[in-house]
């Protein structure tokens, strides 16, 4: 079968803050980029737009970030034909200079000269008892339900997290009129206090975070820090949430839904298939594709921007998107505004300081991994338990993640390791007495998301 593949000079994958700013900068530089995005409308996740029919005012949806959201959403309408925009299109493979896409019309291919991957992030998941029950969603999922659909995930919602997303979602739910059973942070309050000075490197964001927390307290929400041993109660669906406080005392609340996840995790499948070199980041416990300060990956012609190559947040994503576009144009020997590049670099360096403080304020909750019991489901798609993982590691000589996958099926399900890969690596490392970096990472295979055997979506 002959596949005719069109060729484009510059392609951007992802229409979140990084991808939108990248496309905009490329247009400014005189290029007509292709911008490919899975969703119906641009904005990514943090600036996700509700479908037509579920629209609400920007201030309601995005709060303090309304202005940023509106500005980003205005980019595509403003640039219109200057961008070859392809929504509802999944890039499911990268090989050499070729992308494989699945859009509303079916399968297609696109060759590129230069590629910016702005694939974003998803929640970082750690299993806990009951985490697969109907009614348990990620914290990000709880936020999306509200933002994109105007619904709460339940009538009485408990929220659990290990990052700044927690006070934000709690605030958003409370303001929207949801009933909140509890807001539980599995990291210590002391870490936030200790790192507050560092977080003033981005004073505005820091102030907003404080404001959310204060609002939550004023609203009378049950806020707890240093929470451990969380457990979703219920047989066929969530009916409550139990936990232990830092002193070990047991608590519980009634609830019918839980939004729980612990930080964010970069979506790196396309960078992997593109052949980018990865390095292990000890702070976030994740393998991240390497990039230089301007966003160049280890593969000539491939650039990385936004949360997809290390979580930095939406503001950083915008800066990185624009900066990667400048690097791309520079590499094409097109003139760029070097002053602007310098400004971006400076702002990014400043953001990096803030980011380090943020990561320290919500340190990696290793105690949740330590608490994983043998009967806990680790791979949600295939139903594989911690007991199987541990026994396999010990008895069948699985020294690294791909062997573990071959022997246990962990990572072989529909999500291809997105949800379970992180926890599985932590558990494997602990079982073998190794550093997490030493057990490696799951090798990517196309398609990065399911595609229909029958060809049409």
């Amino acid at each position, binding site marked *: *079968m002959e596949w005719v593949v069109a060729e484009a000079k510059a392609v951007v994958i992802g229409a979140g803050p990084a991808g939108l700013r990248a496309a905009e900068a490329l247009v400014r530089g005189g290029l007509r980029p292709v911008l490919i995005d899975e969703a119906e409308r641009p904005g990514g996740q943090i600036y996700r737009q509700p479908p037509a029919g579920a629209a609400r005012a920007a201030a309601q949806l995005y709060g303090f970030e309304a202005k940023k959201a509106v500005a980003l959403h205005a980019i595509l309408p403003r640039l219109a034909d200057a961008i070859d925009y392809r929504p509802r299109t999944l890039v499911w493979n990268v090989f050499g200079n070729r992308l494989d896409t699945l859009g509303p019309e079916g399968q297609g291919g696109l060759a590129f000269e230069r590629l910016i991957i702005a694939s974003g992030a998803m929640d970082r998941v750690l299993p806990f008892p009951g985490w697969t029950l109907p009614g348990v969603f990620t914290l990000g999922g709880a936020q999306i339900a509200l933002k994109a659909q105007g619904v709460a995930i339940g009538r009485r919602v408990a929220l659990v997290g290990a990052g700044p997303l927690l006070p934000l979602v709690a605030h958003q739910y409370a303001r929207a009129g949801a009933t909140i059973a509890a807001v539980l942070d599995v990291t210590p309050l002391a870490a936030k206090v200790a790192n507050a000075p560092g977080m003033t490197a981005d004073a505005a964001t820091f102030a907003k975070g404080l404001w959310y927390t204060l609002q939550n307290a004023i609203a009378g929400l049950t806020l707890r820090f240093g929470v451990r041993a969380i457990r979703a109660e219920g047989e066929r669906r969530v009916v409550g949430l139990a936990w232990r406080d830092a002193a070990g005392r047991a608590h519980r609340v009634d609830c019918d839904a839980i939004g729980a996840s612990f930080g964010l995790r970069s979506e790196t499948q396309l960078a992997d298939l593109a052949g980018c070199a990865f390095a292990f980041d000890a702070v976030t416990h994740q393998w991240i594709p390497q990039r230089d300060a301007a966003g160049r990956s280890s593969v000539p012609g491939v650039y990385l921007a936004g949360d997809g190559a290390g979580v930095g947040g939406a503001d950083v994503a915008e800066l990185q998107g624009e900066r990667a576009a400048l690097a791309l144009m520079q590499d094409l020997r097109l003139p760029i505004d070097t002053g602007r590049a310098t400004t971006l670099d400076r702002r990014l360096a400043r953001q990096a300081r803030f980011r380090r403080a943020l990561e320290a304020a919500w340190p990696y909750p290793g105690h949740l991994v330590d608490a994983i019991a043998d009967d806990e489901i680790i791979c949600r798609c295939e139903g594989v338990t911690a007991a199987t993982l541990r026994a396999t590691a010990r008895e*069948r000589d699985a020294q690294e993640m791909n*062997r573990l996958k071959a*022997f246990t099926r962990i990572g072989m399900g529909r999500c291809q390791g997105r949800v379970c890969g992180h926890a599985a690596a932590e558990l494997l490392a602990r079982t073998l007495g190794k550093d997490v970096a030493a057990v490696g990472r799951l090798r990517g295979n*196309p*398609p990065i998301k*399911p*595609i229909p*055997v029958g060809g049409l979506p």
Partner: protein
Amino acid sequence: MTERLDVDVAIIGGGIAACAAAVALREANLTVAVLEKRLCGAGASGVNFGGVRQQGRHLAELPLARRARALWDDLNRILGEDVEFEASGHIKLARSEAGMAELERYAQDARGYGLELTLMGANAVRDALPWLGPRVVGASLAPEDGHANPRVVGPAYARLARHRGAIIREFSPVRRAVATGAGFETEADGVSVKSRWLVNAAGAGAGAVASWFGERAPVAPLTPNMLVTEPLPYFVSRSIGVVGGDIYLRQIHRGNVIFGGGHGWGDAERGLARPATDVSLGAMVRAVDIVPALKGAQVIRSWSGMDGQMPDHIPVIGASSTTARLIHAFGFSGHGFQLGPAIGLIIAELITAGASTSPIAPFAIARFKDWVDGGDAGQPVQMD
């Protein structure tokens, strides 16, 4: 710091045949070292379709396949783990009258080797397998054939070999091997092995190894292009193949359907392989053609890997034609998985008894003595 080993038998390659040989050699009380360039069983042994199939083989392979088939029934007990072997039956479909004639001819020939096949007309096939697509005019059923999980068999054999005292060295690619007066010296990364005997089970790299001993073996890379679906309700009760070999399909009880056909992309030098998109999309079209109910199912993963194929699509097995105590076992051309357990025994027999009880003359390396490149090299392999 190079580890130095001195053993009776050094084996280059750590796939199923190599590790099965190591087990058998240990049983004969010979010392063995296996040198595997990556992880045991992760090469061709681990990336193939998983068919445990006698039907459709070149007739010369049938005695070996019959011998292997007997071992498969006992493999869980031998290996101490579940290799998920299921004798689901293998049904080979004809999509034309000419194809049916081919099946009839083969069934007649195979009977002479003790392989009983059941020929079925269009109605019988449709009654037995109502979910098959409309283009089927007939089929040949091998009721004892089936499938297993290729990802676990090789590693299980390696574990057993280690348990029995074989020295297994992974991430130890062999860089050179030479014949000395007393035997062989083989050098791999981090380990150097002196041995009396040497086994070349180096898969896609075996041609290079053969050339070190002045032997011609035109091994070409073969990269199977495989796909797997999400779990679906179980209904594909037989392992499916077609005359022409352009699509093969099986479903495991957990529900995933594994299918393939055609070749992916490969770089033999670097040992890299990737599925090829146009090949994958073509296989998807043919899968729906054969099993229309797959239309709504989702493919969740695809892969490829590096196997070695010979121009006549049957392996090289047997003693070297130039060098004493060098044994070859490679070039399984995309269908070595089912044979593996028997090949291990044959390799061991050649060492311990000087000959095999199985008829391996057709697989002699000498048949390529005068081979000139540029012959069949570009032709696609028929997965009969």
